[in-house]
Each structure stands twice: as C-alpha cells, then as structure tokens.
C-alpha cells in the first residue's frame, strides 16, 4: 500500500520536506504515519491533518492511495 504525505507552511520548514511517499503493508493511523516518517520529531500539539483534503482526527486509519496532509493552524482571511 502506498500513501502520499504532504507538509505545509511552518511545518514544511520544520520537517524540512514538502512531501513523503510511504509504503506500508498494513493500515496505519494518521498519527502512526507521522511517527514512521518523523521518528525524531514528535508531532506538535496543534497540528491539523487532512486525508484527501478533508479534515480527519489523528486516530483515523489511512488507506492505500490516500493523500495525507499535515499542517499548522490555518491563518487565512
């Protein structure tokens, strides 16, 4: 199973990447995906997550082909 992970704004700068591709053999939660990709960087408290452009809770499972995005609180408007 392959999932695509994207980072935005200050979080992109913190992790030092804008995208990751992750191959997994069993479903992972959003939070677990973060931990696998960023083993040395605990997820900040305020991080928001979206799967396929909809907000999700961190315990949602990510499925094959999903696009998972992590980003800081939004500040538009």
């Amino acid at each position, binding site marked *: 199973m392959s999932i695509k992970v994207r980072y935005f704004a200050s979080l992109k700068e913190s992790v030092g990447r804008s995208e990751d591709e992750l191959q997994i053999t069993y479903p992972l939660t959003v939070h677990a995906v973060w931990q696998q990709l960023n083993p040395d960087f605990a997820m900040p408290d305020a991080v928001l997550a979206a799967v396929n452009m909809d907000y999700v809770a961190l315990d949602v499972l990510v499925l094959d082909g999903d696009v998972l995005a992590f980003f*800081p609180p939004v500040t*538009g408007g």
Partner: protein
Amino acid sequence: MYWHFFRRLPEVDVLIRLCEAAVDPWQEIASYQAGLAKLAGKYGATSVFVGSMRDFNQGDDVRSMFLEHYPGMTEKQLQHIVEQAQEQWPILESLVIHRVGLVKPEDVLVVVAVWSAQRGDAFDASRFIMENLKSRAPFWKKEVLASGAERWVEKNTDGYQHQPS
C-alpha cells in the same frame, strides 16, 4: 472506515476564486452582481466582508506577506463552508475571493459576499462563511517585517473559534 451521507443541496450558485493578482473588491462585487440578472428584484439584502492587509501586526511594522495555501483542499473546504451556510440560511448567491501568493499592506486579502431576500440571513451567513474560512480554509500567512525578518503568523486572533469538522 466511516460513512458519508450525501445530501442534495438546494440549487444555489457560488463563485469561489483564488487570486494571485490584486483584487478590487467593489469592482469584483459589482461585476458579479451584474451577472445575477435572474435574481434582480429577489434579493433585498447583500452583506459583504472585505479583509485587507494592515501595515502592522502584533506591534510590528509589516512590509509584505506571503499567503501559502493547499491547492485543491482550499477550494474543497470553501465550497463545503458555503454549502453549510446554504443549509442554514436561505441565501440566494455567494461570492468568495481569496488572495494567494505575495501581498502588500493595503491589499485586499479576502472578500465574502452573500445575497438573500432578508437582511438577517445575509448578515448571519456572511459572518458564518468568514469565521469558518478563518478556522478551516488551509491558508497560512508568512510576514516579512520592516526589519527584514520573516515569521509565520501562528494563529488567527478574534471572536469566534470553530473546531475543524
């Protein structure tokens, strides 16, 4: 994993636009309204909010700002917000414009306009759209200060707080 129950929404038009160039809000609204011939005489109320860039923030002079966003998700979330407004208030038409990219002080950042028969609905719906845009649309501001230093705006100030849903 989880079920989505799709609901048919009433037929209401909305234009959502992300814009890299400078926005003249009054010209945009006038043009858009000129295209609403079928609604002429039906709406009694238009409520508009325009957000523009100040030249100061948190005590510092701000020289410019970069508006990053998540293409695709931005439009999807704005559409969803307007649909939620349409479910709650009998609005006839909406317009949402948001700048992206490099902006300067005095530039317009966001325009929200709602047309409805009665004023209470236009007032409520435009504010709902604006507050939800502030808390749910994936935009992020990075300021360039007068000193040349750059900083991410970490949170939106203000009244209403809504959880992402």
